[in-house]
């Protein structure tokens, strides 16, 4: 009986987390559109609901009610499977994210590795979808995406190693608690920048949205996708983007910890701080999209392999040496 109850409890927690992620996606897409509109001196969505707040709901319903079109020559099973993979992978990574102290579905020993593994699977949704469409533009988008995501995972891995050197544990809760004295973005500032840019590339966001560059590839890997399949891609990408925001928050901005451990700040619940930090990083992602033009593909590859890889490798060695010499290692 207790066993069944605990399983039910886990289900309840998972539903809550998925609900939270979907709410984040909902507010994220609305906020982002308002932000881009503000940068470009437009109004943005303002018709549906008060301040256009119900615009994402309208878009959602419209996409849901459209006819799903599967191309005649497509590999049908894989075509349908690909957006599901993207969405499933992006949502399942949230299982280990601590929203506040002990507010986590699965507090596992190797949490950071789990997130890294799951986010590296995100490429499959794109590459399979691009291939299964049996069309030129999606295929080119898929190829670009595969090379891009594999390249930037290398530098993300090194950044994670640097943080782990300072923490001495792979558990996400331990990583946050290790930042009680100082948030890691101060001592590891270059790694923070590298992680931020690599996160943009890893989630195919502008200025690295080459897999779906509309100027060259129409819409890249999602050209042939319509209605709810497109919706699944869209949701999966947003969830993956928020996951990267949460990762930056946990690794560098001290997770749920308040900026200073003093009276009015430390009574605010941790989840509020966590969400504020995630929202701030998401705001930065949105500003990057609004302000910076798209990279060329060879520039993207150069940045990943010739700039980020050497710098992050150097910082791993430097951090390890400093920790060893000054005997700071945990």
């Amino acid at each position, binding site marked *: 009986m207790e066993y069944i109850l605990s399983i039910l409890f886990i289900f309840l927690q998972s539903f809550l987390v998925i609900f939270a992620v979907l709410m984040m996606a909902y507010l994220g897409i609305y906020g982002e559109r308002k932000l881009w509109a503000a940068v470009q001196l437009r109004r943005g969505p303002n018709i549906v609901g008060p301040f256009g707040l119900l615009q994402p709901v309208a878009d959602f319903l419209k996409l849901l009610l459209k006819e799903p079109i599967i191309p005649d020559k497509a*590999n049908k099973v*894989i075509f349908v499977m690909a957006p599901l993979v993207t969405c499933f992978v992006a949502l399942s990574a949230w299982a280990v994210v601590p929203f506040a102290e002990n507010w986590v579905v699965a507090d596992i020993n*190797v949490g950071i590795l*789990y997130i890294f*593994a799951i986010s590296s699977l995100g490429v499959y949704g794109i590459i399979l979808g691009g291939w299964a469409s049996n069309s030129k533009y999606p295929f080119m988008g898929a*190829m670009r995406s595969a090379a891009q995501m594999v390249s930037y995972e290398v530098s993300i891995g090194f950044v994670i190693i640097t943080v782990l050197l300072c923490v001495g544990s792979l558990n996400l809760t331990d990583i946050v608690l290790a930042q009680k004295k100082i948030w890691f973005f101060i001592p590891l500032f270059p790694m923070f920048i590298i992680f931020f840019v690599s996160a943009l590339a890893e989630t195919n966001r502008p200025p690295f949205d080459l897999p779906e560059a509309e100027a060259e590839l129409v819409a890249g890997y999602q050209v042939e996708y319509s209605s709810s399949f497109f919706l699944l891609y869209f949701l999966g990408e947003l969830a993956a983007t928020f996951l990267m925001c949460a990762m930056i928050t946990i690794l560098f901005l001290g997770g749920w910890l308040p900026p200073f451990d003093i009276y009015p700040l430390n009574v605010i619940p941790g989840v509020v701080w966590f969400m504020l930090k995630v929202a701030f990083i998401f705001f930065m992602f949105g500003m990057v999209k609004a302000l910076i033009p798209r990279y060329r593909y*060879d520039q993207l590859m150069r940045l990943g392999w010739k700039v980020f890889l050497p710098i992050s490798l150097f910082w791993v060695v430097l951090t390890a040496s400093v920790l060893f010499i000054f005997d700071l290692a945990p």
Partner: protein
Amino acid sequence: MFVSILFFIFSFLILASALLVITSKNPVNSVIFLIFSFFNAAGIFLIAGAEFLALIMLIVYVGAVAVLFLFVVMMLDLNFEELNKKTNFVKTGIITAGILIAEMIVLFVYYPEEQSFIINKNNELNSLTNTEIIGSKIYTEHFYHFQIAGLILLVAMIGAIVLTLRHRDNVRRQDISSQVSRDQEKNVELKDITFEESE
């Protein structure tokens, strides 16, 4: 009980998908089944309590190696009629499988008990997490093996780069440092032009 049921499910799925890897007609499907069998292998590591190995398996094999497999297989210009012909790899396959089975038998039957690679549950290391045990073993006892493995991988990497690197001179390349280091003094020349009186 629950764990052993899981073990049988995972191992059945590994064998089934491995069989589908070699029998499916479309190579892309083969790679997808290969990825699926990697997943199940990670599952077996998980129920054995080796969560670090399971996730490294996912990161390295599923997240990187299999992506490149898929990438290459998708790029191949395949002739399906050629593929459907009977291949003569059966003999080689049987020989390889025989060698592997012989190795397994040697490992499991003739391996001396005291050097058993199956971790003793009452080990003093049991208080540490998996990750810590692997780290402490690799970087202390097996340090030279680890370094040699790294060296072999480095040689393989350099070899692959040397084999594929072709430097063509007629291609325009972007040299960012020379672009950035351009300055006004070197690249802009001011000339005084005297206008001659026409007429």
